[in-house]
């Protein structure tokens, strides 16, 4: 007998097994949480009244964790490459002997600004409404500015790819400015949230994203067949980026150290592993680069390491952000210390 039939028979919409209802609350989809299953909120094993309630509320998260999935950090990386490439492409404009490199850059900028929105849309709760991102321009929202930048840069990058060196000044400078925005806004976006880890780093994140964008761009280009001249350009651009990225990461760790809870969130768990991996990849990328030999293999290894580092870095930031949101004491202590001044 179907549920609908059994409802008819009982008169009231209840079946002993399901307790489903029609009418009010009919659309209820009730999760069956298994208490011992753990999850984000584990079954509490301490005695509520003997808990240090002065400090927090049963160790429950005070903030919500970011809901973003893998595609968001993936986009952060793609956006960085796109932004860096766009800037480099603009700088390479008209340089005849570097035309191939310029075209690579234009292509990467185009690719990044095309795949990027797809990745972002994939994360949306309502994908069909991705165009709503351009429904308004909200200057207070880094995401709004970023969305417009991404859209604008995407158009410029497409034009630039089509027109190559023939593109006009508007396209050229537009690509450059847009690229810089796309490369850096994500740092502003993360830094200006309620998440204590990101927030504590809000003055470093834009620089980190920007420098890492340069490094990522170079990393991708390094993995391509390059002639000596191109290699030099890429190497120089990349070294500045990598040095900047490394400097930002060091500065970030030092900054974290002043807030032990943030440092802990950054150090521990998945985020910590990814952060360490990012550091290791970046440093080894630099070290390989500095080896006193010249070979395409060295260049490609260095590029690959830089790329891995840049990707790990972005996933590390998301994961550590989640960890920081889970731990209420991080938010509380940061704010308490600030209140003390």
């Amino acid at each position, binding site marked *: 007998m179907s549920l609908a039939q059994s*409802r008819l028979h*009982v*008169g*009231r919409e209840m079946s*002993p097994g399901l*307790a489903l*209802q029609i009418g009010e609350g009919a659309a209820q989809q009730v999760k069956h949480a298994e208490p011992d299953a753990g999850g984000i909120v584990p079954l509490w094993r301490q*005695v*509520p009244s*003997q808990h240090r309630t002065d400090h927090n509320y049963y160790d429950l998260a005070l903030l919500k964790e970011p809901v973003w999935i893998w595609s968001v950090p993936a986009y952060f990386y793609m956006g960085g490459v796109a932004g860096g490439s766009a800037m480099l492409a603009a700088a390479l404009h008209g340089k005849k002997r570097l035309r191939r490199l310029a075209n690579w850059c234009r292509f990467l900028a185009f690719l990044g600004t095309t795949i990027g929105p797809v990745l972002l849309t994939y994360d949306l709760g309502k994908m069909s409404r991705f165009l709503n991102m351009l429904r308004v321009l909200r200057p207070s929202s880094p995401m709004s500015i970023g969305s417009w930048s991404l859209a604008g840069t995407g158009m410029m990058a497409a034009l630039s790819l089509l027109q190559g060196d023939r593109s006009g000044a508007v396209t050229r400078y537009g690509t450059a400015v847009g690229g810089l925005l796309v490369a850096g806004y994500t740092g502003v976006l993360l830094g200006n949230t309620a998440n204590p880890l990101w927030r504590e780093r809000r003055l470093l994140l834009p620089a980190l994203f920007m420098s890492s964008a340069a490094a990522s761009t170079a990393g991708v280009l390094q993995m391509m067949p390059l002639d000596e001249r191109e290699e030099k350009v890429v190497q120089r651009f990349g070294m500045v980026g990598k040095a900047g990225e490394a400097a930002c990461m060091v500065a970030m760790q030092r900054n974290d150290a002043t807030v032990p809870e943030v440092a802990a969130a950054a150090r521990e768990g998945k985020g910590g592993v990814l952060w360490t991996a990012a550091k290791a990849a970046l440093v080894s990328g630099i070290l390989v680069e500095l080896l006193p030999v010249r070979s395409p293999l060295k260049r490609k290894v260095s590029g690959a390491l830089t790329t891995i580092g840049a990707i790990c870095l972005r996933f590390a930031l998301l994961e550590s952000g989640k960890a920081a949101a889970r731990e209420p004491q991080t938010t509380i202590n940061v704010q308490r210390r600030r209140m003390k001044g």
Partner: protein
Amino acid sequence: MAECHPVGFRWVMEAKRRGATIIHVDPRFTRTSAVADIHVPIRPGSDIAFLGGLVNYIISNERWFRDYVVNYTNAAALVSEDYRDTEDLDGLFSGWDAEKGQYDPSSWQYRGVEVTPAAGHREMFSGEPRAERGAIVSAEQHDFTLTDPLCVFQIVKRHFSRYTPEVVQEACGVPPELFEKVARALCDNSGRDRTSAFCYAVGWTQHSVGVQYIRTAAIVQMLLGNIGRPGGGIMALRGHSSIQGSTDIPTLYNMLPGYLPMPKASYDTDLKKYLEYNESASGWWSEFPKYTVSLLKAWYGPAATSQNDWCYHYLPHISGDHSHMVTVAAMADAQVQGYFVMGENPAVGSMNCALQRKGLHNLKWLVVRDFAPTETAEFWRNAPEIVAGDVKPEQIGTEVFFFPCAAHTEKDGTFTNTQRLLQWHHKAVEPPGDCRSELHFIWHLGRRLKELYRSSSEQKDFPLRDLTWDYRSIGEIEEPDAEEVLAEISGYTLGDHKYLPGYKELKDDGSTVCGCWIYCGCYKDGVNQPARRKPASEQTWVAPEWGWAWPANRRLLYNRASADPDGKPWSERKKYVWWDPGERKWTGYDNPDFIVDRPPDYRPGPGAKGIDTLSGIDPFIMQAEGKAWMYDPNGLLDGPLPTHYEPEESVLKNPLYGQQCNPARMEWIRNDNPYHKAWGDPDYPFIATTYRLTEHHTAGGMSRWLPWLCELQPEMFIEVSPELAELRGLENGGWATVSTIRGEIEARVLVTGRMQPFVQQGRTLHTVGIPYHWSWIGRSTGDAANELTAFVADPNVSIEESKAFSVQVVAGRRAKKRRAAAQGPLVEREVSGPERDLAPVHEKPGGKHGLHAGKTEMTEES
């Protein structure tokens, strides 16, 4: 109260906002404690010791309200010289009849007289009806100086003199400082200018001395002058939204509407005798015949004439105790054929669930009316003893009829609340599917039965044939008109069909019809009075135009006591009803609960009869002598005064008396209802108490189906103190198994500082708190707390003892769904050990179905 009556608690919080002190006495720290000014943790089952301590404090510190006590209570009355107190007899009052196993109350009487009890329904157990009822207590038998050693006041004083703060500590585990703080706060907030109220919920009644708990609170309130005055009183918070209504128009076996006693087969053999035995010569119950005849006219209409005693003989005549547990025990012994269960879930909510289900197994048919098939409807399918394999469904012959019922939003009707306030609720939507109201069910059932017997000429069928049953039906589903039923309850005159304005208009000549005399006037002027909803801002603070309160829309009973003996308010602050010397009548904010033109200085002459016997200073008009009874000379079945007795299963020896338990309690000595040792049972060393949570409704029939409520309290759990958790290795969030000799259950553990151990008599006593909402059906399930409880009851009202008993608790899921009702006691052992009773009580005669209540002929079917 906040826990179980959050909506009513709004007024407590309102009072607190205005400066009231809230005192909460409860074994647990509950939501009420959270907002109370004082929380007093008390060992479950020791309330009389605590309240008795208050009585002693009030008297010994001279905090009692002399003018009130002397004039409005029976404190000055002299008691028979034969009276002996529990203080003299180690826990027994004089008059214990060892042969009958019950008290003979004759030694408790006022000197030289016998007085009828108000609402005299309960003397059915005390043998012969009283021949000389209702004589007036004459003046020479009083001592208004209250110094005579045999006046009520001195007896009360002596009786409670041993309930010192130290004894309170020993019995209740309440530290003396805390006790004194409570006593002081209570006294400071009583008197001419201030009043204090007691609120209790049914938990207070669920003890083998439950009625005496409330009696003790009444004594405190009488001494402090807190009855019949605004802000005073004792509020009984009932378990459901209209349980007060179901007592007024009773679903009780021994009462007719308006607290008229059900005729007894053995001696109320005709109307004359029935009236004679129940009519009081003095006080308001002298109007008894008017109420009875009007009721019979309502039920039997034209067939009821003065020639045939108004069809009195049509009424069922009860032959014994047919209360809930007595009936279920008979059911378990296959002595009952059929059972109607409406809006109740005894397989979860009643004591010793497995025995309840054993009763259901042995029926021929069972009708269950509820929102969804409850455990009571599904007992045959997957009850614990069936899952355990002790009972096979194919062995159960009971035919179960399940009727889905309408919710209160799907039918018209009234709720009567604790303040006796009737409030009408309108149908908002039609009930879905086959769901119908109780009114619909009963009316159509009656209609069909009448149809079946329409042409019968057998005498036994006449009551059905002559029953007036002609309500109008409305709509497609033929719902009877609830307002028409209300109009009949309220009453009208037969000749010109005028709606009666109040019970004073009722007649005993068959010219008035009234379904329930206390509700008379609720359809005054043809207006549905309970449906009135005038906002508070548009009327006085007493709000007489919101709903309708029985009797006579009176918001405060016995409110003549709000004025002093001269008829002036005790104080300006507590002004409520007073004598207007100019108009020569009682007036005030409320409808005066007194003979409206009886001056304060009126004194009845010799030979006065009926209500003329009430003097101008007799506010308690339902009592034969118009005074509040601090001491009950006719006695409750367990004594004229409350006395501390331990629960049937205790962890402590009674610190006051050799008599451990209430000698008159009802016990069922049966293999399916075994008991623990009287105290100190090593197998069951912890105290258990059961209770409700805000999030669920009683046995869960209304709440365990609703995801919104289930997520709030998703699982059965028990509450223990950190100390008990450590002692028994219980982990917060983990599992525990709780057992008695009758059953075992498992539950999640909530370890919390809201539970705390008591240190008494040199021992640390631990309490296990057990919510009783869950069982095996619905969205949220768990084991039922009442699988643990026993059949044992208060003798006066047959209410079970589920608020204090002993249990064992161990960590882990160990329950194997064993039930004593299915397989005998869980632990086979010699039950020897300390005696519950003194020697004369010990040999209590047993009755049918294992009941030992010491009742005489009335417990035998005749």
